[in-house]
């Protein structure tokens, strides 16, 4: 068993899996069930002056029959009295001293920050998370992403929090900025101990085509919300990696955004996160998903020969470089495994219409006109089929082949092929000597 425990800003957590500040951490009863299921920590649903929520609040994107690949909400911070929240935080910490409770906060004036931080610490919070991310409702009152999108204000409020707090302070960033380094660096300058990212992305989840009201509708109207769930993972991964790579960001990162399983989590860790947080996947499937996250990460670390989570953290960062540093001499071509191919033609049409017109069928549409096996535009070189099946009118005569001279190694065919490992990309580099664009520019200068 690999050691899954982590230490972030001096806080010990039994594993890197935390519940993000959201509905799954609304109440003490929920958080305790989450801990029972195996979650290492929880960031409490954001506290502040209690607000009034609207109905409905959520919307989702389904794709090709898969439910909730993206999720959006127009919910605000906690709508329960502060007293009740603090009482429950106290109770949770008393019963689960080994699990981490971070209290997420969002208030306005310096006095209010002083007051709420004191109460959080009194309740037993292991740390604080300043919610500078919520992109709807709160920002219009000068809070949430209104702060997150304004580095100067963010830095100042962070420094207040640091002044009042004796426990570690995380700043939760909004992704609704041009360059995530701006608020990231401001948070560090403000003295934060850690950065959580990302909060939700401004979005309209859809339009009800019957009523022509955007979704989720509140009567005959709607408003923009915050987008999250599996669809946003690539955006979140990029932002986490950019901060992890930046030398000015010298604090640990808690990665958030679209994490549903151990693989997603491992990717965040590899790109520099120390802990990760989950909201949507838990809202969809419940706390129980953490079981496979723990099990899967453990098995992965064992297979990789890593003894602890911390050995994984940041491993993929050296490989994350600027485009100009990529090797221009690295060449790939696509290979089709004819025995696995089911003849669906998807690689063919993808390459024909969306890539480099270099996959051919033995009886492609224009075969009838040209009397040769190609798509009509003609390969610029003589096509020697890598695989030439019986050539009969069977499903197998649909097996396409790649014109290896013309293939530019873009991956498209491999990505669309429905059969696992049927199309693979093979390295055919002429030289192992790396040469990047940056190298070429440097050379041309000398």
């Amino acid at each position, binding site marked *: 068993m690999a050691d899954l425990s982590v230490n972030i800003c001096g806080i010990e957590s039994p594993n890197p899996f935390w519940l993000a500040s959201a509905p799954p951490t609304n109440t003490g009863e929920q958080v305790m069930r989450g801990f029972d299921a195996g979650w290492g920590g929880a960031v409490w649903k954001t506290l502040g002056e209690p607000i009034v929520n609207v109905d409905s609040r959520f919307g989702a994107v389904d794709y*090709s*029959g898969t439910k909730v690949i993206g999720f959006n909400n127009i919910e605000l911070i906690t709508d329960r009295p502060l007293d009740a929240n603090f009482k429950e935080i106290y109770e949770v910490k008393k019963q689960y001293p080994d699990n981490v409770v971070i209290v997420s906060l969002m208030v306005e004036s310096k006095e209010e920050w002083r007051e709420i931080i004191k109460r959080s610490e009194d309740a037993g919070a292991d740390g604080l998370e300043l919610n500078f991310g919520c992109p709807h409702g709160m920002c219009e009152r000068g809070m949430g992403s209104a702060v997150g999108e304004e580095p100067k204000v963010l830095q100042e409020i962070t420094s207040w929090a640091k002044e009042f707090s004796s426990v570690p302070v995380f700043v939760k960033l909004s992704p609704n900025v041009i360059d995530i380094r701006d608020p990231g660096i401001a948070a560090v300058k403000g003295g934060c101990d850690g950065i959580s990212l990302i909060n939700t992305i401004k979005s309209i989840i859809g339009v009800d085509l019957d009523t022509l009201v955007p979704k989720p509708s509140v009567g005959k109207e709607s408003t923009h919300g915050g987008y999250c769930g599996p669809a946003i993972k690539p955006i979140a991964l990029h932002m986490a990696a950019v901060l992890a790579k930046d030398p000015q960001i010298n604090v640990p990162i808690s990665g958030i955004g679209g994490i549903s399983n151990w693989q997603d989590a491992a990717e965040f860790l590899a790109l520099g996160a120390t802990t990760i947080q989950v909201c949507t996947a838990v809202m969809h499937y419940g706390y129980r998903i953490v079981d496979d996250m723990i099990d899967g990460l453990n098995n992965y670390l064992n297979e990789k020969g890593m003894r602890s989570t911390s050995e994984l953290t940041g491993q993929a960062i050296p490989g994350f470089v600027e485009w100009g540093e990529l090797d221009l001499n690295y060449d790939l071509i696509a290979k089709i495994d004819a025995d696995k191919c*089911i*003849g*669906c*033609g*998807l690689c*063919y*049409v993808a390459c024909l219409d969306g890539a480099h017109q270099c996959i051919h069928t033995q*009886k*492609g*549409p224009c*075969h*009838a006109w040209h009397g040769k096996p190609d798509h009509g535009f003609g390969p610029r070189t003589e096509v020697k089929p890598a695989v030439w099946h019986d050539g*009969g*009118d*069977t*499903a197998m*005569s*649909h097996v396409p082949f790649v014109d290896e001279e013309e293939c530019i190694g873009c991956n498209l065919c491999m990505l669309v092929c*429905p*059969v696992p490992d049927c199309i693979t990309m093979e390295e055919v580099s002429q030289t192992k000597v790396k040469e990047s664009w940056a190298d070429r520019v440097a050379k041309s200068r000398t």
Partner: protein
Amino acid sequence: MNDDTSSKLTISPDRLEKKFADYKPLYTESEALIEANRCLNCYDAPCISACPTGIDIPAFIKKIATGNIIGSAKVIFEANMLGYSTGRVCPVEDLCVGACVYNDLNYSPIQIGRLQRYATEKALEKEVSTGKKLFPRNSRKSEKKVALIGAGPASLACAAYLALDGVEAVIFEKDGLPGGLNTMAVAPYKFQTEDSINEANWILQHGVELKTGIEIGKDISLEQLIDEYDAVFIGIGLGTDSRLDLPGSDGPGVWGATDLIRQIKNNPDFSLPEDLNTALVIGGGNTAIDISRELAMLGAEDVRMLYRRSRKEMRGYDHEIVGASHYGVRLVENVTPLEVVRHGKKVKALKVSSTISDDTFELPCDWVVEAVGQLKHVSDVSPEIEVDEMGRLIVDSETRRTAHPKVYAGGDCINGGKEVVNAAQDGREAAFDMLKSWGISPSLHGKKYFKSFFTYNGH
């Protein structure tokens, strides 16, 4: 499906056929969405090439997935105006579904027939509820008129494409009901008489005229039609059951298969005798399998098919044989019938001999059903029409035109007995050739008419 302007053809609801449950019921919306989303949307998909009418299957399936039911049904009907019945009666295991790429992945293939039924049935429901026609009647009228003989699938398809382009299409049917074997013969767990009549009514509402109770060759001659119309389409199917004329076969308890099936499907006064225990069905084709399964499902205790060779050689589809065996139908291989043995009037046994030894024996039974094919009856229409050595009407394989330039033909009468979908394709090809010869470009033809460059021949 009905239209107030067309005469509504109906049938009494009390029929034995009604005892059969639909073996592939209409998908619910969620079932349809799950199945539709599973389709890979193959490029130049093998399922299309395997469909005799070349329906653009991935296109209609993906339209189901996006909730575009009207668009989906149109893709189907543009290629096959009988897309509703073929969705329910096609032997898909041997056609589109058998060609689906998922078979090669060892996954269950896409249930194309059921999706096709879903799209067409839902769209036709919508047509009624909204009053908006999928294919509004063409306002432009041509001067041309076509007579069609027989109201089976071949003629219905042909007439529909003609009417949509303003040609006057008149169908002459000797029976009282339209639909041909879709009405009279197709297994009731797939498709029932009302379904077939509804489909025919839907076709008629596009401006097709139906005259029932008129037999061409008897009441009106073919020559007269040729004189009065710009073209004639012959879609007369096959004739009555071929009979073995065994000694003792005259009298109750011995049936021709399609005759018996028609009793079950269409005759409100027909029921099985209480004491029907053993039924022996002679034959190895799909009709033999169908009637065996139907009798077994209706409660006959012991149903056996007798075939003169072994199962390997049977013409019936394997999936149908397996289907019948689930209802307890058994197969007796390598026997040939000799004589019906009666006790008084009642059938007592069938005397058979083995085809692989010299044995002769009696199989006790209550009923004997002969399913040994249907007669060719082209000559009933006119002795002049040219037929091949198998009695099939000879046509040009592209245009379905006979040697007579005004006469076309399609369906079972040219192919000797295939499927509804083949008849539908013949009807369409003939209609298109007529239209083109009159300088009318078929409005449903266009670029949507998908012709695959691959020809699929099965696995």
